């Protein structure tokens, strides 16, 4: 046999071997593409280019323009090795058909639309499972969208639309869902279990077409939610339950105007970490955390809600902002202010019983204006740092003053409040910063405006100095006057009384008609 014939045999053998490899690839896993003529149901062979339904070893590609409807319950099997959605493609779940579980062993990557709609029937259960391997990833890229609508009225918080990370092995590692700039996210009544969500550079202001970021009424178990460089995301009424090892429930990084509202967060190191500007953290309930809210950014508003059982309830570091209308309970330090300028208004603080080292307020190189909050100066700690005697006091407490005028009130009468025995005489036209909203009108019923009106009289109460001592509480003179017509001349004075703010002036209910003081004419 000459060398030429030998090479011919070798060539045939090689060809056979390559053919065998190709054949085994078809059996052991290959790329299966949708039919590029509209798609169809997952379980139908006509949906696929190869005229066969994808198997567990296959990498599935849904071609642009195709819509593939997932119509199987693969709870016990793997649906495919990986799934890729091309731009303009759709992957949806069959509705009204009971349990539909899609299990992907590897990466789920989408430039198209993934849609799970469980609103039709409470009997439906739609689920994506990220299974096996070290990683369970669902990545959504520019042009892609994820729309999950679970049934809104299921008992006991049950969700019938879920993304879940499971593992064939002994230990389940965390899975992740990540969405990039240019994606549309609308998630309602969904469950994310062991799958943390990362939203990157998504703009929810409506400026960029097809970009949305709304996550509502959903549950995250052993999962964190991170927003990075997003704008105005809306994250509301969600429930997040973590494990001690998970750093944060919600993390906001350079994400302005975020609306984080009505969420329940428990068992994280930090409930909400906000490193962003003009963020509103509204009506959130945070429990069993090391730090409830940790804010670094600017103009962060914490409004309403409750923080319970935290080492530190709220920590503001290096920012300006406000904390209002909420409660902090059973937390070792309720509010910590580090190099920040904040306002604490209408807060109810309840320190742990018997906790001698507990603090309502811990201020280090910042300043806090306290308005109508039950903070006992004995539970306030200030750290002097670089402060000089000229530095304004670190803590100033203000109280609402609602006066009730009884008797024969003359028309046009108002209540004027002045600091009694002010340390320095008040120059003409200089505002007395001890007092706001004076003179105040006398409304029908004889009361001056209530706090909700935003025009109630406010007066300075105690102030803490940098050495921890208290400045004397000012005394005020309230006078019922009738201003002169046209503003010229002296006002007509009726009756006046003196008063000094104390703890009893605290108003737990801002809408209460109760008067702080009564002036009888």
């Amino acid at each position, binding site marked *: 046999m000459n060398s030429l014939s030998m090479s011919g045999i070798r060539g045939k053998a090689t060809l056979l071997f390559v053919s065998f490899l190709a054949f085994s690839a078809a059996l052991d896993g290959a790329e299966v593409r949708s039919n590029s003529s509209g798609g169809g149901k997952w379980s139908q062979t006509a949906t696929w280019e190869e005229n066969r339904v994808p198997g567990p070893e296959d990498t599935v590609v849904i071609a642009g323009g195709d819509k593939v409807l997932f119509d199987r319950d693969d709870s016990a099997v793997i649906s495919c090795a990986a799934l890729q959605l091309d731009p303009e493609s759709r992957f949806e779940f069959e509705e009204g058909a009971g349990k539909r579980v899609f299990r992907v062993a590897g990466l789920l990557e989408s430039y198209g639309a993934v849609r799970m709609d469980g609103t039709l029937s409470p009997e439906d259960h739609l689920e994506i499972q990220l299974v096996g391997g070290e990683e369970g990833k669902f990545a959504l890229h520019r042009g892609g969208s994820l729309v999950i609508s679970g049934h809104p009225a299921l008992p006991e918080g049950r969700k019938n639309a879920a993304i879940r990370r499971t593992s064939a092995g002994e230990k389940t590692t965390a899975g992740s869902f990540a969405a990039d700039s240019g994606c549309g996210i609308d998630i309602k009544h969904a469950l994310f279990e062991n799958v943390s969500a990362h939203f990157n550079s998504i703009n929810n202001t409506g400026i960029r077409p097809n970009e949305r970021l709304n996550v509502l009424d959903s549950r995250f178990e052993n999962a964190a939610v991170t927003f990075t460089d997003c704008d105005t995301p809306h994250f509301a009424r969600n429930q997040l339950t973590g494990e001690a090892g998970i750093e944060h429930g919600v993390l906001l990084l350079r994400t302005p105007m975020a*609306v984080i509202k009505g969420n329940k967060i428990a068992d994280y190191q930090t409930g909400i970490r906000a490193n962003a500007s003009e963020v509103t953290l509204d009506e959130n309930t945070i429990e069993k955390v090391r730090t409830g809210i940790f804010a670094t950014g600017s103009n962060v508003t914490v409004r309403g809600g409750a923080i319970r059982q935290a080492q530190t309830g709220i920590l503001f570091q290096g920012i300006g902002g406000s904390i209002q209308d909420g409660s902090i309970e059973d937390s070792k330090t309720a509010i910590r202010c580090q190099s920040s300028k904040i306002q604490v208004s209408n807060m109810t603080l309840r320190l742990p019983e018997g906790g001698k080292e507990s603090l309502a307020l811990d201020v280090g190189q910042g300043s806090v204006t306290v308005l109508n909050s039950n903070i006992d100066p004995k539970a306030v700690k200030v750290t002097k740092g670089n402060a000089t005697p000229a530095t304004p006091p670190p803590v100033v407490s203000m109280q609402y003053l609602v006066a009730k005028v009884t008797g024969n009130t003359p028309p046009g009468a108002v209540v004027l409040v002045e600091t009694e025995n002010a340390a320095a005489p008040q120059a003409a*036209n200089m505002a007395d910063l001890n007092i706001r909203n004076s003179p105040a009108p006398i409304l029908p019923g004889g009361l001056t405006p209530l706090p909700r009106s935003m025009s109630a009289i406010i007066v300075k109460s105690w102030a803490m100095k940098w050495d921890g001592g208290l400045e004397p509480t000012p005394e005020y003179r309230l006078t019922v006057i009738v201003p002169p017509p046209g503003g010229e001349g002296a006002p007509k004075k009726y009756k006046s009384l003196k008063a000094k703010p104390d703890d009893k002036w605290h108003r737990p209910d801002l809408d209460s008609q109760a008067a702080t003081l009564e002036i009888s004419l």
Partner: protein
Amino acid sequence: MILLAALSLPLARGFAQRTVDFPPAIGKPPPAHKAPPRTQTGGEETSIGIDEGVAMRKTQQREPPPPTNLTIIYKVQYGEDLKYVHPDGTVQVFPQWESFKNDASSLVQSTNTRLADGNNYQYATAPLSSQGFDPLDIPILYMTGDYDFVLRDSEVKNIREFVLKGGTFIFNAARGREEFVRAVIREMRKVFPDRGFVKLPADHPAFNSHARISEVNTLINGVQSVQSPPVYSIDIGTRAAIMLVPYGLGTAWSGQEYNPSGRHIVGEGAVRLGVNLVAYVLGSTEYGRFLAQEFPEYEGESNKGDVFRFAQVRYKGSWSLNPGLQNSIATGLRDNTGIGVDYSPHTVALNDAELKDYPLVFMTGHYDFELSPEEQKGLAEYINRGGTIIASAAAGLKPFDIAFRRELKRAFPNHELVPIPPSHALFMAGWNPVQEVEYTSPVLRDEPDLKTPQFFGLFINQRLAVLYTPYDLMSGLNRESNAYAKGLESRDALRVTLNLITYCLSH
């Protein structure tokens, strides 16, 4: 007497300087200082010259053309010079109109950066009393201040003409002072005695014309808060034509310290709101021009006899938003179905005896309204006797939607508005089946997949008596070029309406 009163203020302005008790936005003038002595001798060579750069050859590649300069805002000059005595005795005299020196320039800069639409928007200043403000040229007049003011007659006339020609007036209480707000409300009654300011609802396009804004941070007398953006408007059609922001925006726009005795919208929210207001005006100029047209009026019955005749419901609210609407409907019906029509516009109140003369009435509006007990009764009687109402929320705004559902429930407490499926004969039967419809871009922005008619029906004795859509049907029908109307596109608005009318006539 009136003339005397009108003259007295300008006279007073001329001769007596008003002293105010609130410090001006522009700070106290710095103390005068002596100029440094000149060290240069006369005629000395300074070698200071203008660097003209490297000359460009004709063949050299040039930069792309710069953006088009467009002046879109006049910051208007009004009022008088005011006097303020600082606590240290320094007297400062300042022009009332100016408030912040760089508020308008900061606003246009932010607009340029954020809209980035290839234009370089600019602002200018002009006396409000000057003649010839033309919205085609400059669509926004911006007026700001802290103090009371009274407009001259020429200023009142200018504002009225400008706004009716399609222009938009934006008032901002520079630092949220009540006295400026009160003056705006009082003076605008002179401009439009029959219209008042209404707070813009949360879904108003001014809050999403560029970025969606649901809440803004505020600082009121030193107390921080978060609230829905406070913007009030006097509307023409559904266009916010005179807008009033009673909380200060200027401090945030010009990056200054917030006055603790003021009411401010602070930080990014103020900037976004300002850009949104400008974007809203730019997007509604065409609609403003549409509304400024003269529309045909027919007197009496244009076509007597047994022809299709309908009316528009008149009520205490914004019922008349679509000028020439009835002509559009009648023409569309006549041209497409051959049905004889009466072109003359009819309006009818729900408690009018003539209501029964119309088998079909149209109703629209964009804000909250309440029917009187007589109107409630008239509505119930009309429907029970076989009348039909077709209603839609103008611009797709929520306040009308809420009010219409509420008032209908009061008239028919035992009946519900139910969704009408797209497969209903209303849409699918007859010569003009409407399977899919096209919505305007403001709808698609929130609901990109919406393609079917969204109608609700109230059935009385199995008869479809009320047909209602929370989307705008009328502006499409009227081809209003309203960029912010959440509704059906013009062609589909007509197709759907023809179906509704022919269905109602045949059932």
